[in-house]
Structures are given as structure tokens and as C-alpha cells.
């Protein structure tokens, strides 16, 4: 415990999240995993966007950047390409990642850039008080869906896999141990890794939809999540209304920044008479 606490900026605590919110649970799972892996604090960058989940970066004792809405992965792409040796982690939410940031998400997955993206899915925009998001289930209420959400939600796992992510997992703020296991594999994967953490938002999503308090929302996660291994041998009708957790995909593929570094090496071999650039720019060798 004390080791994982060391990954927090303790003078920035307590956090701003509501009682019963799952974001703290997810952030705790991340720090415990980093501590378990013994990752050097000076070698980590945490990048976040805008929203409740994205406040996590401010509490963590790394180089951290709280970017603009939807842009965390694009900022992270610049950081990772600049410093492939550093561990780059994106902390984002369902709205930040899949609505305004959807384009960056799918292209980072396509490139298979070595970034671990943790998507805290609380089914709505909490920071702006409960509007529906691209991951709000159909029929559920939001402050901009007063008659029920008529849109269909993303299945983030399938989206990530289709776009080329090489490690994809899903857990919940109830299944904390599983979450830690998935985060560990995601952090060790050389490529674009996505871990979706289904979390409760008792203040907005829960209250609007009369789902009860924080404990009821944790209970809902427990009752509706089915591990992908168990699901494999279950009859389809038994899976109705449930969602899958566990490791959804794990398949190695060439990683973008390593590929680019290999390109640099081959280009430099080709121009082996390199003397500070063919155009004479001696001062900007890297």
C-alpha cells in the first residue's frame, strides 16, 4: 500500500470525485500495478483529457498533462514518438475518448503506438452533470436524453480491436483485482493497449436513472459483468443484458515508434555520409 501511495501527489489529495464514484478505485488500481511492476516514477507520463476521469493526472506523481477535451491521445502520440523509452499512460472517460476524441483513439489503435489507454466508462458526462455519451446504453436517461437515449452505444472493446489495438481488456470498479491484472498486461504490452473500466456515477447517471446509491451501482456491476472465459461456455440467452469483462484481445503486432526508429536507422545508413544533414543543418542532430 505504502509503495502505491508513493505514486500519488499526496499534497493534492483529497480528490474532487463524488462519494461512490469509481474513478478513485481505478486510479488506485493503476498505482498498485505500477508499484507491483516497480516502474520508475521519472519514466512515466500520464496524459488526460477533460472530464471527471481526466482529473486523475493531477493527483499522480509523474510528469502529467491535463490536455484539452478529446485530445489526450494526440498529445500522448507526440510525447511517445518523442520519447519512446518512456511509459505513456492516457487516462480518459467515455465521452472524452469516444465522442470528441474518437478520431485520435481509432488512429492510435491503427498505428499500434505504445500507449496504455484507460477509459473510465461511467456511461455519461459527469463533469457537465449527466448528459448522454456515446457509451450510454439505449433507453437510459440523461439530462440531454430526458425521454431516454435513442442512440446505440459503442462496444469499446470491439471498436478498439477493429481499429488495431493489440491489447484490449474490460473490468469494473467492483472487479478491482481483475482490473489490476488487465492493467499489468496492458502496461507490459508493446503497442496500443485499451483497458475499459466500467464505473458507477451515482451522482448523475445513477440518480437520473434511479439506480440507487453507490453500493447499488457496485452491485449492478457484480450482477451484470460476465467474465469472457465463463461466457464462452454459456448459452446466448443467459448473456442477455450482461457485458463481458476480462482479457478481450491480446495479439502482438509491430509497434509504431519502434518502426519509426527502425526507419530512421535505415535512412541514416542510406545517407551514411551524413554530416549534419544533406542540407547542412549541423546543429539539429538529435
Amino acid at each position, binding site marked *: 500500500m505504502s509503495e502505491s501511495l508513493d505514486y500519488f501527489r499526496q499534497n493534492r489529495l483529497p480528490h474532487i470525485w463524488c462519494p461512490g464514484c469509481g474513478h478513485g478505485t481505478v486510479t488506485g488500481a493503476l498505482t498498485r500495478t505500477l508499484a507491483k511492476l516497480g516502474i520508475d516514477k521519472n519514466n512515466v507520463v500520464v496524459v488526460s483529457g477533460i472530464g471527471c476521469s481526466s482529473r486523475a493526472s493531477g493527483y499522480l506523481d509523474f510528469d502529467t*498533462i*491535463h490536455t484539452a477535451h478529446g485530445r489526450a491521445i494526440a498529445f500522448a502520440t507526440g510525447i511517445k*514518438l518523442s520519447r519512446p523509452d*518512456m511509459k505513456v499512460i492516457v487516462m480518459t472517460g467515455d465521452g472524452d475518448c469516444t465522442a470528441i476524441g474518437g478520431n485520435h483513439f481509432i488512429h492510435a489503435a491503427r498505428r499500434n503506438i505504445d500507449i496504455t489507454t484507460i477509459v473510465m466508462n461511467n456511461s455519461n458526462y459527469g463533469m457537465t452533470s449527466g448528459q448522454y455519451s456515446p457509451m450510454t446504453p439505449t433507453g437510459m436517461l440523461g439530462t440531454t436524453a430526458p425521454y431516454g437515449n435513442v442512440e446505440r452505444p459503442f462496444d469499446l472493446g470491439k471498436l478498439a480491436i477493429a481499429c488495431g489495438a493489440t491489447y484490449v481488456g474490460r473490468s469494473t470498479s467492483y472487479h478491482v483485482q481483475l482490473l489490476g491484472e488487465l492493467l499489468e498486461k496492458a502496461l507490459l504490452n508493446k503497442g496500443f493497449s485499451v483497458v475499459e473500466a466500467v464505473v458507477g456515477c451515482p451522482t448523475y447517471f445513477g440518480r437520473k436513472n434511479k439506480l440507487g446509491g453507490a453500493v447499488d451501482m457496485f452491485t449492478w456491476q457484480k450482477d451484470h459483468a460476465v467474465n469472457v472465459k465463463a461466457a464462452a461456455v454459456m448459452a446466448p440467452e443467459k448473456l442477455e443484458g450482461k457485458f463481458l469483462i476480462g482479457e478481450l484481445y491480446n495479439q502482438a503486432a509491430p509497434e509504431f515508434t519502434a518502426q519509426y526508429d527502425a526507419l530512421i536507422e535505415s535512412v541514416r545508413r542510406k545517407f551514411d555520409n551524413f554530416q549534419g544533414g544533406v542540407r547542412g543543418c549541423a546543429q539539429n542532430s538529435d
Partner: protein
Amino acid sequence: MPEAKLMQGNEACTLGALAAGLNFFAGYPITPSTEIAELCSEELPKIGGKFIQMEDEIGSIAAIIGASLTGRKAMTATSGPGFSLMQELIGYSAISEVPIVIINVQRVGPSTGMPTSLAQGDVMQARWGTHGDHPVVVLAPGNVRECFDLTIKAFNIAEDLRVPVIVLSDETIGHMREKVVLPDYKSIKVVNRKAPATPAGYLPYKADQDGGVPLMAPFGAGYRWHVTGLSHDETGFPTNKGEVAGDLIKRLMRKVEKAEPVIRDYATESADDCDVLVVAFGSSAMSATSAVRQARAQGVKAGLFRPKTIWPFPEEPLRELAAKAKRIIVPEMNLGQLVLEIERVVAGKAPVERLSKVNCELFRPEEILKAIIGGSK
């Protein structure tokens, strides 16, 4: 011995960037700026630099801010629609004080407009495109060699003041080919950002004076600092105190105001004793130069004031010249943008005449000559 080369403005911008230390480029293809991305994709790997074609212009500016935070010299290049998309993160660069350079090769707008045609319609957007009060520096090259020089200057200012710097080129300057003699690279002054000495006690947004520039640590060097687009205090963490947020905005603005006399850049021709002063920038200034020379040949006392820093505008030198001139003519490829600033600076000391053109064709010198002579009679 430097040799003369035939090159276009976009190429000169890229070479200038490389000479200034560019080692990270992120961009998205858009006419008429694309040659810059193409050349960067070819040249950067040779020096171990990084190039990435992002999924859009928002991603491009985000990626260069990220790269700059790790200590790289980072740039993007774009035009109208892409420049519009970048506006939010220009504000991010300004408030978080992460240096970046943006080359905006202007084209006809609004919207998709005419991608391959000339306009100078982004003057106000370059200054005020993002929301909120914010500092920004805008440089306007008037020929191909200046694309080289001013891109170097853009990097130096960005690194020195920790501000976003925009090189406001245009379709004609960007695509025009001229014979250029580049300077001896050893003579080029390159400014690097000032870094703190130790992580102990590091306050990332502590400025030692009003309008001061805080020291910037690169990510990955053990400082473990926090960057945000929220209003923040000296620690870099968000604040809800109105007073602190206001002081931050004032310091950011003062940074550039204080530096104005140092970064100020302009050229004049026959301006000391002129009756008619033409004020022009970018490609319009090429036509204006020719017009002024023709007017002189005809015995009309015409002169030229050509700002290269257009934001902040070089007020003082123009005000001095305006006090002596009988008329001021402002030709620009828009319906009147820089002229608003000139009217403010001149403040009635001389009548300011607008010469606007938005038919996508560069001014013919005769058009400006006609305005010079026509009004003199």
C-alpha cells in the same frame, strides 16, 4: 562560400526550421502548405528527428505540444481550414507556455474557399483566433529568403518567450520560387529554452518578474510537474481564485509586450521623406515595393513600411513615419484587416486609405501606383 539556390517559400520555411533546430513535425496535408510536411518527412529521419502525419490538424497541434514538452523543437504547417481547427490548442500552448511554431500558408476563405489561390485573410484570426485574452507572436515573410529567416526567428521567439509563434505566409510567397542565397549556418543564432538547474523546489510557472518567462523543464527529466489548460498558479495546478487567474493572463500578455522592442522587425524603403506611405506585408508588399519605386521614378515622393512582425505590431516606427506622411495607403489581400491596426496606430496623424483586393490575384504594381499617384493629384 554560400551558393545561390532556386527554391520556393515553403521549402525555405522548412530549411529555416531545420536550421533553428526543428526535430519534430506533425501535420496534415493541406494546400498550399503541403510541401513543408513533405520536405520534413524526407529530412527529419536523416537527422534522427521525428515526423508524423496525424489524423487531422487538431491532432497535429496536440502532437507538437506533446513533443515540445519533452524538450523538442516542434512545428506544424497548415492553411485556412486547418488553421481554424488548430485554434483551441493555440490557446493551450499560450496558457501552458509550451513553445510551438505554426506555419500558416494563407489561402482564400472562408471555409474551403479557393485552396490554390492567394489571400491574406487570416490576419485577425492569427492574432485573436482562439478564445480568451492570450499572447501570440505573428511573423509575415515578404519573400522566399525571409521565409527562411523568419522561421528561424519564430523558433527563437517561441523558445525564448514560451509562446506559440505563427509564421503567416501566403499562397504566393509559399509557392513562388526565387533565387536565394542562404546565410552561413555558423552565423545563425539559435535560441534554446532556459531550463531549471534542479528539480528541488521547482515551481514551473514561477516568473521572477512581471512579464517574466518561467524556466521550463522537459518531461522525463525527474521534475514530475503538471501541465494544464486550466487557469493555474505558480505550481502549475488549477486555481479557482479569480485574482490568481487574472494575474496569470496579465503576465502572459506582458511577456510579449515587454519583448516587442526586441523582437520588432520591419523594413522600409524611401520612407524617411515620403508624402505617400504604403504599408504592406507578405506578397502584397512585393507589389507595393515595385509601385513605390515606379512612383519615385515619376517624381512622386512615395515610401514603403513593411512590417515583418505583424503581431505585436511595430507601433513606434510606424507612428514616427506617419507623423511625416501626408497619406497612408494599405494594400492587402482581404477586405481590411491589418488596416484596422494601422488606423489605431496612426491615430489620425495622416489619412489612412484602404486598398483591398479579394479576387485571388496578386496586386499588380500599377494598381498600387494608381492609388499613390491618383490620390496625390
